[in-house]
């Protein structure tokens, strides 16, 4: 390979990398990030729900393991809801951007609830786990009803 061809190749590579770096700042990526967190939440809430609903046997150890994950995931979600994502097509209602303080407050309440759930799960008190879980998912639904559109 001739020298100028190498230069051209390196220049092209630099361009590609810088284009990629710029793309990483796109609001689209914030949307995908928060959707990833939400999907991860659903992934972990699902089996807990099945236990609470009695569709599978209640396994306190597994429940506590999943509850710990929720406590980590919930505080991660808010980062992806940046105002510059308002224009990106997503499941977020326009109201979310008009009531950002309320939205933030709700996520913080859910943070408290998920931390409490993780704490309760460690005690092994199954009845209390059920109640605390029920309270937490009610918060999920309350916020979805307010700020999430289905289509």
């Amino acid at each position, binding site marked *: 390979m001739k020298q100028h061809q190498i230069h051209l190749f390196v220049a092209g590579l630099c361009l590609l990398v810088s284009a990629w770096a710029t793309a990483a700042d796109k609001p689209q990526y914030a949307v995908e990030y928060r959707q990833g967190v*939400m999907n991860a939440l659903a992934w972990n*809430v699902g089996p807990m729900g099945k236990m609470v609903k009695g569709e599978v046997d209640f396994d306190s150890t597994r429940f506590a393991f999943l509850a710990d994950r929720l406590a980590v995931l919930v505080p991660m979600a808010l980062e992806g809801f940046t105002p510059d994502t308002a224009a990106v097509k997503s499941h977020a209602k326009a109201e979310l951007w008009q009531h950002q303080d309320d939205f933030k407050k709700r996520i913080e309440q859910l943070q408290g609830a998920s931390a409490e759930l993780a704490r309760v799960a460690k005690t092994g008190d199954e009845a209390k786990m059920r109640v605390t879980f029920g309270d937490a*998912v009610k918060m999920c639904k309350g916020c979805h009803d307010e700020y999430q559109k289905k289509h």
Partner: protein
Amino acid sequence: MESRRILIWDLPTRLFHWSLVVLFLLSWWSGEQGGTAFKFHQLSGYAILTLLLFRLAWGVVGGETARFTQFVHGPRRVLNAAAELLTPTPLAQAGHNPLGGWMVVALLLGLLLQAITGLFANDDIMNEGPLMATISKDLSDILSGVHGFNFAVLIGLVGVHVVAIVYHRLRKGERLTRAMITGYRTLPASAITPRTSRGWLAAVLLALAAGIVALLINL
């Protein structure tokens, strides 16, 4: 004017109506609750779907006032009924009037759409309809959206239905709620007593409807 008391709503039709009222309220409540109260929403939805299938069959082979051919009419009779609605004279007719007949159709179709979309819906948290797994998540999301929007439509229809009943009571002195409870209305002596249907047929149809729903949710 001479009048007499006649049976206009047979027992299956009345039981259908009031079971539906109770289940509608239960579905509303449990739907708002979501989360762990959701099992009631599901059961209530299955029961409503069962009742609707029963009612569709009952509309063909049931008592006379329950039959679609008896109360679904074209625009001219609907307009006449609408004009008559404004007068204070009570209707001399047993069963649904041509205007109310279309409300029955609207309510049945609205509830049917609600029950069917519910089977495919998901709440993005921990609950899903029994047939959600048979379709894509995107389609389930769309149907969940329809389920949510159509509920508002249903509330509107139920509201109009209830207001109409109150209007009939206040303006025309017709006690329609009592008729739906006891089955009887006092009508001019000239009114024809509608044919009722066999109770055992209703029981068979209801059992069949329940069987279909049971098969459906276990697909």
